[in-house]
């Protein structure tokens, strides 16, 4: 093939002015103007395209064809086919893959900031203010329905197997001990709905309250506590949140803000919003005032029940020693920046109360409570939980021997994670 042949080919040309698709003769780098393409149109007219203005349109289908445009003219197009000519053009044109500059940067920045400002205003101001107001007017039945629904969602989200809700621990003796603790605290006051205390079979050292009288303790928290008074103190604190309707406000807030966040991220992987919501509720960071209010509530309840309010401080101190003040991203009990103040407040309350304390549970009852998940009693049907690699729940058959795992329970277990478990009774 001579140079002459290689440099002459036929292509299709659109002038960008009318809808003709014209067959043109193209001379690549003709001798007179080696830095140009020379197009000869069917009517004999000639056009010259400098090689440096040639751009190739990206992401085009078709292996052996390219569509060329000019950087100085947004409309005209040249379609070249055939492997030989295409490769030749690629060699000749220096800036074939150069991108056009991004337009409208100023507007983009303006609207970007506008979008951030409007979302921030809605999530941090409008929705919280509205949620606080609306929470006052939500009737008890509605609050309870909201809590029931949310509790179910949280249990499903926490079970990494995905399908079935996280099992509740319901060993009869342990449940009886828990019930005795609840009665002794006598903290319900005039709640318009029954208080329901659950234990979730999970390693998290945490507890949370939900609208409509739900309080949930994680097994990890009961195992981490060294005395029943510490558990009772946490329970009293959470009941404080229920009594002050903090979770209701929080749930309404999430209802408003989750949709907005979903809007921002686009539901590029469905269901992420639900996970986020569950996480948000468990790790609910209530305001300082709300935490202080719940602490104060707990101090009073504990004093009335002849338990030292200092137990709350002991539990906080234990959490702080384990996680440190700043690290407690997992347990909201431990995450508060003013932890030291709260421990101090509990100590002061303990001194001021001056009550004669008596144990909230007997040693036997305490051991039963710690074994509340030990019987592996499942509320959910075991076969509903599919086995996956990420599923570290023990076999749901009662007589299965405990998993053999290294002697350890993580001090800060992950929200959704895999770790072994041990029989609570064998802990030192």
């Amino acid at each position: 093939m001579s140079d002459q042949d290689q440099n002459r080919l036929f292509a299709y040309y659109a002038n960008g002015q009318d809808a003709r698709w014209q067959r043109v003769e193209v001379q690549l780098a003709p001798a007179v103007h080696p830095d140009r393409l020379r197009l000869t149109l069917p009517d004999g007219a000639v056009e010259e395209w400098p090689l440096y203005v040639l751009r190739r349109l990206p992401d085009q289908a078709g292996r052996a064809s390219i569509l060329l445009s000019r950087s100085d003219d947004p409309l005209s197009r040249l379609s070249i086919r055939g492997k030989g000519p295409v490769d030749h053009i690629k060699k000749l044109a220096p800036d074939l893959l150069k991108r056009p500059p991004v337009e409208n940067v100023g507007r983009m920045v303006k609207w970007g900031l506008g979008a951030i400002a409007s979302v921030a205003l809605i999530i941090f101001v409008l929705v919280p203010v509205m949620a606080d107001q609306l929470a006052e007017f939500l009737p008890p039945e509605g609050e309870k329905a909201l809590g029931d629904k949310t509790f179910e969602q949280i249990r499903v989200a926490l079970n990494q197997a995905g399908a079935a809700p996280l099992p509740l621990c319901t060993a009869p003796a342990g449940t009886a001990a828990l019930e005795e603790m609840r009665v002794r605290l006598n903290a319900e006051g005039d709640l318009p709905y029954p208080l329901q205390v659950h234990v979730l079979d999970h390693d998290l050292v945490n507890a949370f309250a939900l609208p409509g009288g739900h309080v949930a303790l994680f097994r990890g928290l009961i195992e981490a506590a060294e005395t029943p008074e510490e558990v009772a103190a946490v329970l009293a604190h959470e009941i404080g949140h229920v009594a002050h309707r903090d979770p209701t406000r929080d749930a309404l807030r999430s209802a408003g803000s989750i949709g907005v966040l979903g809007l921002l991220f686009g539901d590029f992987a469905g269901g992420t919003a639900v996970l986020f919501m569950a996480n948000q509720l468990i790790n609910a960071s209530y305001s300082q005032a709300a935490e202080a209010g719940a602490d104060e509530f707990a101090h009073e309840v504990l004093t009335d029940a002849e338990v030292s309010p200092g137990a709350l401080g002991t539990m906080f101190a234990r959490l702080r020693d384990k996680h440190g003040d700043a690290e407690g991203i997992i347990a909201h009990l431990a995450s508060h920046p003013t932890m030291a103040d709260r421990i101090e407040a509990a100590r002061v309350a303990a001194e001021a109360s001056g009550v004669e304390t008596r144990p909230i549970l007997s040693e036997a009852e305490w051991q039963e409570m710690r074994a509340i998940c030990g019987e592996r009693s499942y509320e959910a049907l075991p076969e509903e939980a599919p086995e996956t690699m990420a599923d570290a729940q023990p076999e749901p058959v009662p007589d299965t021997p405990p998993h053999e795992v290294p002697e350890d329970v993580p001090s800060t277990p992950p929200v959704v994670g895999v770790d072994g478990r041990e029989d609570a009774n064998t802990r030192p």
Partner: protein
Amino acid sequence: MILPPLKTEYVGDKGALFWLALKTGALTVITLGLYRFWMKTRLRRYYWSAIRPGGAPLEYTGTPWEKLLGFLTAVVVLAFYIGVVNLLLMFVSFSLFQGNFVAYAMSFVGVLPLIFFAQYRARRYVLARTRWRGIRFGLEPGAWGYAWRAAVHWLITLASLGILWPRMAFALEKYRVDRTFYGTVRLEQGGRWTMLLPAMKSLYSAAAISAVAGVMIWSSDNPMWALAFLLTGPWALYGMAKWRADSFRLLTGAKRMAGVQFQAQPRSGRVLGIYLGGYTLAYLCIVAAVVAVMFTLGMALAAGLSMNPQAILEGDFSSIPGWSATFFFVMGYFAIFVLWGVFTHVFVTLPLAQHFAEETEVLQPELLAKITQRARDEFAEAEGFADALDVGAAL
């Protein structure tokens, strides 16, 4: 001079599309969704350029930055609606009905006109950024008119138990096509809605048979009725493919563009085959991918656990396998999500586009030479509302 009809070439390639969709899908996950504007733009460029009526490729000239800007604009407006209105609905729903179903239902009904609005605007943007033979398409403004018409037509269609579906399909298509331009020339949708009735034949008969059989199962013991009822399932599937192919053929045949006409002959059997075969293949590929992901995850976990027994015994590092398991779990979830999109592109969307393109011809193409360029429709808001509400459909 009379020219022969322009046949449509299709040069799309499953392998190339697979890599493009995989790459852009993975980037979308890694960037927490931000790359989705680039993903959509790049996929559109590919799909458009694969379709070549008379050898001239369609060209998509939209840019990801435009889409991003449009999205930001829509967020400013929609964040208020979604945040405040959803909160109020949730409150009302739990106060009065003790459940969130009503909130979701009301939220959906409230957002419906907005969805139609967004769909029309998205179409306007996409047409304004589509060229063929160097000439721009365009769509006249008219989104609110479309939104209320669509809402009314949906109500009528629901009230008629779906019998008037072709009436709605025709009316909305006519509204859109009659406002569509190619260069300076306005398109026109001819025909009447009743011409679509034959395309509904199979769906109508499937619905009628299942209704009769349902009643008869209830009132008689003859097992033949149960069999008839079961058979209406596949029959209805065929009916949907038939509707898809035949309504396209009838509507395309009745479109006019300054004397230029069109002819399409897609086959319902082929459409049904692409749907059934394509989704089956995509499903099998996903199952294979899940097995591979689980296997890798298991290996990684096993390796992770056996590599630091000392650390695990010491306690502090024991959370590492937990976190890594979470990481693998989340990544596996996203991987499956992305792969499903990739496989449906390759096995369903591309073959469908190919079939419809290859069966469509442009008649009287000599009249095209008189069509001239139209001005650029700036429309900086792009299809932001459709992106924000996630109603951009497949493409």
